[in-house]
């Protein structure tokens, strides 16, 4: 009895309060988005808001159960939990139901459950366990292989379900791994190439090339000033361009295009810089030139792949995400309607239950993936700012709590929770305002659905339990 009291005393009540607040706000918006006069009772279980209230109640029961479990349980059973959900991911491939093109759901009666959600939780536990193990070392091949295996098994299984969106979420484990000592270059390269990928599709090749050049220049300056070698590289770039241009003039030979000239010139100049770096013994220049060449190659191959390999509907989606095509009734319909709904909210919003865009179904999936539209339309910029701040407050709070942990396991797990939450919030809100691709992942605590609500509750309550244990041991 005494220990029980202690545990409840040690729980981080601020976090619990924020979660509860967000669930209630989420519920209000679900109520508004499916509201109609005929079913106005909030406990009507035939309506989504009625069910969601039930799911919220159940998630707190789950929370109570988790807090009462000994924290050693999660450490001890993390591989088992991981194995159990991997097994479910395999089973769902054969017995699952296909919803929206992804075979990722178990459907029992009216209840649908998505194991890929819980696989994130299980993977976080397994990774925490692996990292905290005594002989783990980032520079060790064996450790690296294990790490890769733990992440890639669920990712591959989820890709097999045709749910690339959920698989992408696993990228966020790079963040806790980075915190635990993974080379910053990997995180940097992933971010850098995501940016180059996006820019290759959005920006003209010439502009991109100049950007890359400027970037290389800035980095080089940041490391060491050497105006002469930069000037040399630029000279080679301009010189080769001129030569190729003269060549076409003199021999009247038609080149495939201006961009190929640029492409060759930049590769040649990059190579010249590398040679120069050997000659002058400047390894930083060599590294930067190599990155430059790889970026150029990558960017041109992205263009090529985009034009020649992707199907037209995939091109549409990417184009639409990047704002390259305006086609409100075609592939971009959802995002456009979503932006209309959020944009029409204005500064103060239209008021609770007054949103016309969401009430009259102009926004698709408005109680699940696009719930943020209801927030934007009915509560305006004030509402969206409050929600956004709440989320980022929660994420930062989790990171600060994680930093306080004394075990690597708890810290890694805390970072994982914060990162998964961050990724969901960033992608979900991003897709409603046209800053992220529409990959259909829910907004934590807001989107309708028991499966995702419980997943986030379990994810956070397990961390709260681990955190409570820290204080418990202090006493």
């Amino acid at each position, binding site marked *: 009895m005494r220990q029980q009291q202690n545990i409840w005393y040690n729980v981080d009540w601020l976090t619990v309060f924020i979660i509860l607040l967000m669930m209630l706000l989420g519920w209000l918006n679900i109520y508004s988005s499916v509201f109609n006069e005929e079913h106005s009772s909030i406990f009507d279980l035939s309506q989504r808001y009625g069910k969601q209230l039930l799911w919220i109640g159940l998630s707190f029961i789950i929370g109570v159960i988790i807090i009462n479990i000994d924290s050693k349980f999660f450490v001890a059973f993390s591989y088992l939990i991981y194995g159990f959900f991997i097994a479910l991911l395999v089973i769902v491939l054969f017995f699952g139901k296909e919803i929206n093109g992804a075979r990722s759901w178990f459907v029992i009666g009216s209840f649908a459950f998505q194991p890929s959600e819980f696989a994130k939780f299980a993977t976080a536990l397994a990774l925490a366990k692996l990292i905290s193990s005594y002989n783990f070392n980032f520079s060790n091949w064996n450790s690296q292989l294990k790490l890769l295996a733990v992440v890639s098994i669920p990712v591959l299984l989820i890709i097999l379900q045709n749910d690339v969106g959920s698989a992408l979420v696993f990228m966020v484990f790079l*963040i806790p791994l*980075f*915190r635990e000592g993974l080379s*910053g270059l990997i995180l940097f390269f992933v971010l850098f190439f995501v940016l180059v990928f996006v820019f290759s599709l959005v920006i003209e090749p010439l502009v991109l090339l100049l950007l890359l050049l400027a970037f290389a220049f800035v980095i080089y300056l940041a490391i060491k000033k050497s105006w002469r070698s930069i000037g040399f590289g630029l000279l080679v770039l301009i010189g080769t361009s001129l030569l190729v241009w003269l060549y076409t003039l003199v021999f009247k030979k038609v080149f495939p295009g201006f961009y190929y000239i640029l492409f060759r010139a930049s590769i040649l100049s990059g190579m010249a810089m590398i040679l120069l770096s050997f000659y002058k013994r400047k390894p930083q220049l060599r590294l930067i030139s190599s990155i430059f060449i790889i970026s150029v190659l990558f960017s041109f191959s992205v263009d090529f792949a985009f034009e020649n390999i992707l199907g037209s509907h995939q091109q549409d989606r990417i184009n639409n995400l990047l704002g390259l095509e305006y086609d409100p009734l075609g592939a971009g319909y959802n995002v456009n*309607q979503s*932006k*209309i*709904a*959020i*944009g*029409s*909210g*204005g*500064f103060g919003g239209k008021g609770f239950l007054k949103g*016309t*865009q969401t*009430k*009259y*179904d*102009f926004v698709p999936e408005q109680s699940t993936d696009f719930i943020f539209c209801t927030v*934007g*339309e009915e509560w*305006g*910029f004030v509402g*969206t*700012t409050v929600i*956004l701040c709440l*989320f*980022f407050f929660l*994420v*930062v709070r989790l*990171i600060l709590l994680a*930093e306080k942990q004394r075990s690597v396991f708890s810290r890694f797990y805390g*970072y994982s929770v*914060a990162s998964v939450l*961050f990724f969901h919030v*960033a992608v979900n*809100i*991003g897709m409603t*305002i*046209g*800053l992220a691709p529409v990959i259909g992942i829910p907004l934590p605590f807001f989107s309708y659905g028991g499966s995702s609500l419980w997943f986030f509750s379990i994810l956070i309550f397990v961390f709260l339990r681990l955190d409570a244990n820290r204080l418990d041991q202090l006493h």
Partner: protein
Amino acid sequence: MDRNTKRKNIIILLFLIVGFIYLIKLFSLQVLNKTYKHSATRNVLREVIDFPSRGLIYDRNGELLVYNQASYDLLITPGETSPFDTTLLCSILEINKHDFIGEVKKAHKYSRFKPSIVVKQLSSEKYALLQEKMYKFPGFYFHTRTLRCYNHNNAAHVLGYVGEVNNSVIQKDNYYKQGDYIGITGLERAYEKELRGEKGVSFFLVDVHNRIKGSYENGRLDTNSVKGKNIHISIDTELQAYGEKLMQNMAGSIVAIEPSTGEILCMVSSPSYNPEQLVGRNRISYFPKLVADTLLPLFNRAVQAQYPPGSTFKMVHALIGLHENIITPYTTFHCAMGYHVGNFSQACHHNRDFRLSGSIAQSCNAYYTNVFRKILDEPKFGGTKNGYEIWRNHVVSFGFSRKVTHELHEELNGFIPTSDYFQNNLFRYSRWRSLPLVSIAIGQGEILTTPIQMANYTAILANRGYYYTPHFIMEIEGDEVDTLYKEKHFTSIDTVHYEKIIEGMEWVMDSEKEGTAADSRIPGIAMCGKTGTAENPHGPEHSTFIAFAPKEKPVIAISVYVENGKWGNLYAAPIASLIVEKYITGDIQKSRKNLEKRMMETNLLYPDKPNYIRYKE
């Protein structure tokens, strides 16, 4: 800072940067950008237009001329249809199946949830037939509009027709939307604002499937439609129909005006068409035919045809001569089978002296050539050019060379050349002389007038010096008629001179005075007239005649043109006399029945087919 703290900070910074970018984006989306608010309104608001019924048109005796009947557009909402029997539908509606399927496909392309019109303007008969079978065609429904309907098939040009607005009107006047009706010609156009009423509009909120979810702001912005105003026009339908009958096989026009008010009693333009032909679905088949017809049935000759006035213009010269003290009623000029100066001759057919009245009665060319030249060469005017300008100013005060009505948009100006015109042509390389202009003396040459202008001129003569703007409108129910129509307009000629020419016009009808139109005399009615022959470079001359009656307190002033009718007394004078007699006595006396029969049976349109009669369909 150790490595771990640094990494923690990097991660937090990364998160916060993303959050900050999102905040900026939300701010621009929700606060700065206004277009999304408009898009949202466009998404949910549907206007439902309540079309008012168009005002009715009555004639001067209260006879209903134009009214409305319901017509039905068939609409389809593709998302609500189920497979249906196209053949049955098309056979009920008597339409081409291929065209129908084309329209349905277009509707599909437009929207699955919004209705599109597939068949326009169905008659109430077809509507009734289809209404019974509508249960077989879910997703189809009707939309009621009104179409014009006519009690008489007369006065098509005066009434004009109603049709869908074109884009240029929509751009200028935001009252009109695509598919709205508007008066296109005639009085339908002139009194469009009064006749159309005001559309009502209700705003509804709709969902993504275009289903109405409720009224917008509790109907605060909704408006009721206002019925169009009825108008009463001055046309005497019986007289109009009689005129059209007389002219049924002639091309030309009749315009009759009540001189004491300026009200137009009848305006016939022949050949004409049945106004029903330009209503609803009929228009699709008739309009191209009417446009292609070489006799130009859509052309309102009464206001659009510009002919030389011929001898009917001679009184204008006489009045100017009298006003400027160049002649008196007793001034005589000699006619030696024409007017001769040097090598120049203007032919005539008398060999005697004429005073004013005789010159009108027998239409002496030599007399008016003398008068016209004397006006132009009058020494006190200081030169022929000045003389011409003074002459022209007098002429224009009779309403020539400009539009005389305000109601018929299609009216043309006619043409009385300005002195500049001659300066730049005839007298470009020589000084002004009156001789080259003498064809104007007999109403030929460069001058052109319209039948409505000639009728107005006749009304001036009947009124002895003034006119009221010729008009049709008598009453707009619930509104005022323009006070302009109550204003007297005087000519620049002193009114005392008018009486001096009336005698001559009376003699025109007098066989004892060898009047040119003595054959058309109406026993018992003192009519004053003047014959004319308008030169026509394309064929036989046009027969023209102007007249008013009775001589004292005239009730009708009339101008008649019969194309290719040669001399005024051949067709134009008899027709004018029949109209006058019909209007004044209500009937045609026995002794003149033959004349009436001859006019009705004359076929000038198809000279090679004397027995063919062109009836209006």
